[in-house]
């Protein structure tokens, strides 16, 4: 036998575990999981697999354009509303002024008649 074979035989020979091996394994299994710190939780995001990043990108690519369109719509609605308000105020005051003018004329006529 060569020295190499002897070395291998020595290295691979069966060795019995220590007596408390089973207890230690069971104790480790039953131990509550260690609570990870917040930075460790955050670090998970940066670790492979990067599914989270892909998901985040997909969500962002959907949410950001929708939010942009919604914002644009609201801006347009606001501008439309302001314009309509100006027109409404103008129309109501125009109607009011004409009505008031007629009332003044009628009142003026009745006062003249009363004086006569």
């Amino acid at each position, binding site marked *: 036998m060569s020295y190499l074979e002897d070395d291998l035989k020595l290295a691979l020979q069966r060795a019995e575990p220590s007596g408390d091996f089973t207890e230690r394994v069971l104790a480790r299994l039953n131990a509550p999981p260690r609570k990870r710190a917040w930075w460790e939780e955050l670090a998970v995001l940066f670790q492979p697999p990067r599914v989270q990043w892909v998901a985040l990108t997909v969500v962002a690519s959907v949410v950001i354009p929708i939010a942009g369109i919604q914002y644009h719509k609201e801006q347009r*609605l606001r501008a*439309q*509303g*302001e314009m*309509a*308000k*100006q*027109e*409404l*105020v*103008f*129309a*109501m*005051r*125009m*109607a*009011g*002024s*004409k*009505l*008031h*003018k*007629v*009332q*003044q*004329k*009628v*009142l003026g*006529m009745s006062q003249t008649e009363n004086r006569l």
Partner: protein
Amino acid sequence: MKILCSLTLFTMMAAAAFGQGLDLKHLDRLAAKANDTADVTLDGSLLKLAAKFLSASDPDEAKIKKLVSGLKGIYVKSFEFEKEGEYAESDVAAIRSQLKSPGWSRIVGVHSKKDGENAEIYIKTGGADGGLAIICTNPTELTIVSILGKIDLDELSDLGGNLGVPKLDLEKSPDKSDKSQPPKKKEDE
């Protein structure tokens, strides 16, 4: 079949005309001749949208908001011309003829020979289906106002009292500012 189609079309047109109040389209051609033109068409959702933007804290806007709550549409066409004779009497007659339809009644008609001013007020009773029409003319101006819905004439006139015209009812607050000036058109008072 043709008769049925014609009848349906007529019914639809009549319904549309009823919903929009007066037909003022024939006046559009006057815009080319006028120095100043005001054309306001507010109905349905646009009127509601405009009302939403009226501030409840501003006293004048609050008044308008209250007035508008019962309205279905507001239409204003006003033309100011440089010289006389730019509009024809038939333009006004076409509107008067529409106001001869059932429901409408003329409550005031003022004619001034001195300056050629005419003013007519028509109302249509019927609550939410009611309305108000004002025709004001003078040789160089033509103004038509048509309001559909429930309108309080006193409150509307009160708005007009803000435009530099002294108010008759002195018991009410005199804190009227001149921001009531319309944005597009100068008043002739």
